[in-house]
């Protein structure tokens, strides 16, 4: 199958200036990363903080401009899109952010937050937009009667549903979800993960799922890429990667997951 998203040799370098007498310092946040995601797949990028997984996700959507490399979506070169074409392309590729507290405008009502993408892309009349917002809220399990509430009136899990409704407003094919449940409590995480899996099945979505929770990744990803210090050190189908990690860093990462079985506790030698 032809991939929906193809990333080749992607790099992002940040140049930091440490005062004007010292030479600028280059941080290689993402270095020569390549992977492809097939339609309907959930591809997870895992790694520790600072490994470059979030930057990779942002580069794919051009929320951060990559330094070099290629990103092809549906066969087209995303990095070559002029601004107008890029904006149109964003209808098909959307993002769900980690923190449901900072990624929603506190002064906008829930209905307006979900309607905003529709307004920006001039989809439908204002009446049909209102219907669509109600439909979207229902889709993510929120009550349409909550349309006039402000973000602070929702719990963390509900806010993440709201962020998801906004991301789905334009019927995208592809969603970058950057740590979508890591700010949520365990009992709420499961609700949002179920929702993400349901939506994928119903709408045929493709996910780039960025996470550090390896147990969660094992549960929902079809394939996994492991990032370490800006590089993609290993890519493989989830079951295979978890059972036979090849790269020493992947092995170390997997060995660090605390087991839920007290009898399997690591004893010091």
């Amino acid at each position, binding site marked *: 199958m032809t991939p929906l998203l193809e990333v080749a040799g992607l790099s992002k370098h940040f140049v930091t200036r440490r005062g004007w007498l010292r030479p600028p310092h280059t941080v290689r946040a993402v270095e020569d990363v390549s992977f492809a995601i097939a339609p309907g797949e959930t591809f997870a990028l895992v790694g520790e903080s600072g490994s470059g997984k979030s930057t990779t996700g942002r580069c794919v959507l051009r929320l951060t401009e990559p330094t070099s490399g290629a990103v092809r979506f549906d066969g087209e070169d995303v990095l070559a899109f002029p601004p107008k074409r890029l904006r149109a392309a964003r209808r098909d590729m959307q993002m769900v952010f980690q923190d449901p507290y900072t990624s929603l405008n506190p002064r906008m009502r829930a209905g307006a937050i979900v309607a905003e993408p529709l307004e920006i892309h001039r989809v439908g009349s204002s009446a049909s937009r209102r219907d669509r917002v109600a439909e979207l809220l229902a889709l993510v399990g929120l009550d349409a009667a909550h349309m006039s509430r402000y973000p602070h009136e929702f*719990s963390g899990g509900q806010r993440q549903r709201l962020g998801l409704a906004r991301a789905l407003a334009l019927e995208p094919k592809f969603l970058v979800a950057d740590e979508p449940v890591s700010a949520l409590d365990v009992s709420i995480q499961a609700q949002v993960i179920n929702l993400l899996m349901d939506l994928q099945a119903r709408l045929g979505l493709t996910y780039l799922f960025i996470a550090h929770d390896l147990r969660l990744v094992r549960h929902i990803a079809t394939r996994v890429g492991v990032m370490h210090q800006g590089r993609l050190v290993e890519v493989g189908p989830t079951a295979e990667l978890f059972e036979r990690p090849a790269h020493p860093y992947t092995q170390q990462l997997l060995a660090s997951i605390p087991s839920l079985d007290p009898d399997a506790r690591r004893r010091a030698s």
Partner: protein
Amino acid sequence: MSDLLLSVEGLTTEFHLPGFRFTAVDDVSFAVRRGETLGLVGESGSGKSVTAFSLIQLVAPPGRVTAGRVLFGDRDLLALSDAELCRVRGAEIGVVFQEPMAALNPIMRIGAHIVEALEVHGLARGAEARARAIDLLRAVRLSDPERQVDSYPHELSGGMRQRAMLAIALACGPPLLIADEPTTALDVTVQAAMLELLRSLQRESGLGLLLITHDFGVIAEMADRVAVMYAGRIVEQGPVRDVLQSPAHPYTRGLLESMPGGTPGQRLRAIDGTVPSPDARPEGCAFAPRCREARPGCSTVRPREVLLTESRRVTCHLYTGDVPAAADGQAEARA
């Protein structure tokens, strides 16, 4: 000699706000023995951190401990004067917080934090204190302790900072350490090293550990016994193996079932609803509105703690016998 280090009985902490007051810690009882790790686990807002702060009287107004006893050795910490408490904190009970950057003084060198603790408690001063600081940093496996003793907190990585926090907490050789989410801000590989460090320190010194976390993985790795908190109450406690392998309280069961780990791709068994806000807790069991096994009386009758075995307690009407199961007709009417 009893090996009981800390015994908490009926601890209750309330917050009095204009027009409303809520009970953050509600009649909580547990014990920590020498060399033992008690894991206190719960979701955000369950009251686990307020419990820890209450033990050493660090709850700030409008919060106030309103009932209970905290027996540490032969003293009740709740009855001590401020001066006496200051001698206990740090010297006999060490504390490690979740966010080391917020707990360390940004303009004090790492060594100065440790020296301060030693001097305040009259254990060492000057060059001797500095030498002990270096030894402590070595004991928590901080690389190059002779150099790091003069580092400022911002010069260290998150994992190194947390080790420095631990060195400060252990400076006076306390028999009890309270660790509030000590590894939550750390990456998994750094977390694994930190947990291993805590375990080896415990083996060497018989340190009692009250470990507060939301992560059952950390509990399974570390704890000898576990207490599960929900909405201010301990709903279940017992040996870690028993609780994790055969959870008695529907909340514990729900939490464990909602964690990914079964067949990949399958729906997770989520707990419906959300934690009730403090002003909207039901009179009876706070978990009743989300409970799959709730009975008609659960949200109105407050459950008491029941002893399942000598070492296991649970606070749930499935075991109290105070609330009858719905008769068949009633169950259908509810469904």
